[in-house]
């Protein structure tokens, strides 16, 4: 079953900007889906239309088999949204924000109080429950938005660049939590600028460019389409590296260089070549991020 089916979604803003030009997209139930695109590609517009913040110009949306237009309120109950910008009341306390959001979804107050304790503890905000939201740090505000989106136990969670401006430690802990949510059965739809994030988390990925999906596939298939792999090689001395013929090499400093190896070729062959030329290998690692290179290649095309 599909958690989300988008067909021929069109959005033309009043100023004539065509943000979406007929987008088709499927997300399987229980999937972890990533939508990648540059600024202004149409990612936020698409999430806005599905969640009810933007009016569409044309097309259709189904959520868990329910037509969004005909079953709007049932569809909304299944959806949770973590928007890109902070959009909670800066003068309200953390727990009050969560409880009110539960109320808007028809969750009784006593249950909302209990559930808010669980979700705030899980996101490390329980100690801040009586703090006015504007006094939270940036990372805490981001977590507050996740807590708010989860309070009514949605089946489909949209996250619009959730880790933008978040430090590395918090980003990794959020990734772990999102994986945990996904493993518990929640379908996750993520937009991100961090391609490493998509590569780490998402099983299916779509790339959107100028309001159109230019690629939509399983992440392994996408990465397999890359014909070359770049490796970063550490050696004792790079002075003999130029002796390696038939390889595309970039020397970075006196002990490091990069090499692009065709997937048809063998890494063993390359290491043997190094040995034959007397170059002492210290370390070798693939250069991340593969998805990033694919993304740049597709945008270039």
């Amino acid at each position: 079953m599909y958690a989300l089916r988008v067909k021929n979604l069109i959005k033309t803003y009043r100023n004539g900007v065509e943000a979406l030009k007929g987008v088709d997209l499927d997300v399987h139930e229980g999937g972890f889906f990533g939508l990648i695109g540059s600024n202004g590609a149409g990612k936020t517009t698409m999430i806005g239309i599905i969640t009810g913040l933007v009016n569409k110009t044309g097309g259709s949306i189904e959520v868990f088999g329910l037509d969004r237009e005909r079953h709007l309120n049932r569809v909304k109950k299944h959806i949770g949204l973590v928007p890109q910008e902070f959009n909670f009341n800066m003068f309200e306390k953390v727990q009050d924000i969560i409880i009110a959001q539960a109320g808007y979804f028809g969750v009784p107050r006593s249950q909302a109080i209990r559930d808010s304790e669980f979700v705030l503890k899980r996101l490390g905000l329980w100690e801040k429950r009586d703090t006015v939201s504007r006094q939270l740090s940036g990372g805490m505000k981001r977590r507050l938005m996740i807590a708010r989106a989860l309070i009514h136990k949605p089946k489909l969670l949209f996250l619009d660049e959730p880790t933008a401006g978040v430090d590395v430690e918090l980003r990794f802990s959020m990734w772990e939590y999102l994986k945990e949510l996904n493993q518990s059965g929640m379908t996750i739809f993520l937009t991100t600028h961090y391609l490493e994030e998509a590569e780490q988390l998402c099983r299916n990925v779509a790339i959107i460019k100028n309001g159109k999906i230019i690629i939509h596939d399983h992440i392994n298939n996408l990465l397999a389409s890359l014909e070359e792999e770049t490796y970063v090689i550490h050696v004792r001395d790079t002075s003999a590296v130029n002796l390696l013929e038939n390889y595309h090499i970039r020397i970075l400093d006196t002990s490091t260089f990069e090499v692009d190896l065709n997937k048809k070729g063998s890494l063993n062959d390359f290491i043997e070549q190094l040995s034959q030329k007397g170059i002492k290998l210290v370390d070798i690692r693939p250069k991340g991020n593969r998805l990033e290179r694919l993304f740049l290649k597709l945008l270039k095309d």
Partner: protein
Amino acid sequence: MSPREIWIAYMTIVRKEVQRFLRIWPQTLLPAVITQSLYFVIFGHFIGSQLREIHGVSYMSFIVPGLVMMAVINSSFSNVVSSFYGAKFQHHIEELLVSPTPNWTILAGYTTGGVIRGLIVGTLVFGVSIFFVRPEIYSLPLIVFFIFMTAVVFSLGGFINAIFAEKFDDVSIFPTFVLTPLTYLGGVFYSVNMLPEFWQKISKLNPVLYMVNGFRYGFHGFSDVHVGISLLILCGFMFALIYTALVLLEKGTKLKS
């Protein structure tokens, strides 16, 4: 949503609205009481004592219903316009827009918040008036009906104003240039029968006149206009404003791009 879930959503909005204006009561409840008290002292007590009776009641007694009504109009309107526009400005209105709460419930919740503030302020102002003049009650049901309906109508007006407002200036334009003149010229301080015939006819185009007079009828049993027409005008305004607000919410005017 089931009726119970809708009730929960409605009560959530109402609770938030009431908590908001109670939290900042020196801004939301106190100013109206102080202003109207000054009117009682200056117009009612100092100047009013020099004036003759109107329809057989003292000038002080005559202006009490109008001043209560003026406080109710301003409080209910400004409560909803500032709260809903604040929600738009900070984008936390999106919390409601992504939820399954029906549009009519959103409207009812915000309107109820405005009505409750209007009624609290009206009661406080009326309470202060007791220090100046002994209250007369001609018809309690009419008093309750007019004050309640007026609070509803102006809460709805505040909601529509907030929908269209794009900056903080837009929140104050309507109250300053439309609401205040209509209220002051709506028979709060005088009987329209005291005006020349031409100005009487012009005054009768002012809907606030009907609200003030209907409310005053509940206290003193006299009115410059027919009370039945006042009732109809209030009901007419209420339904027209509800319809307009719901259409705007349905379209997402100034709320959704």
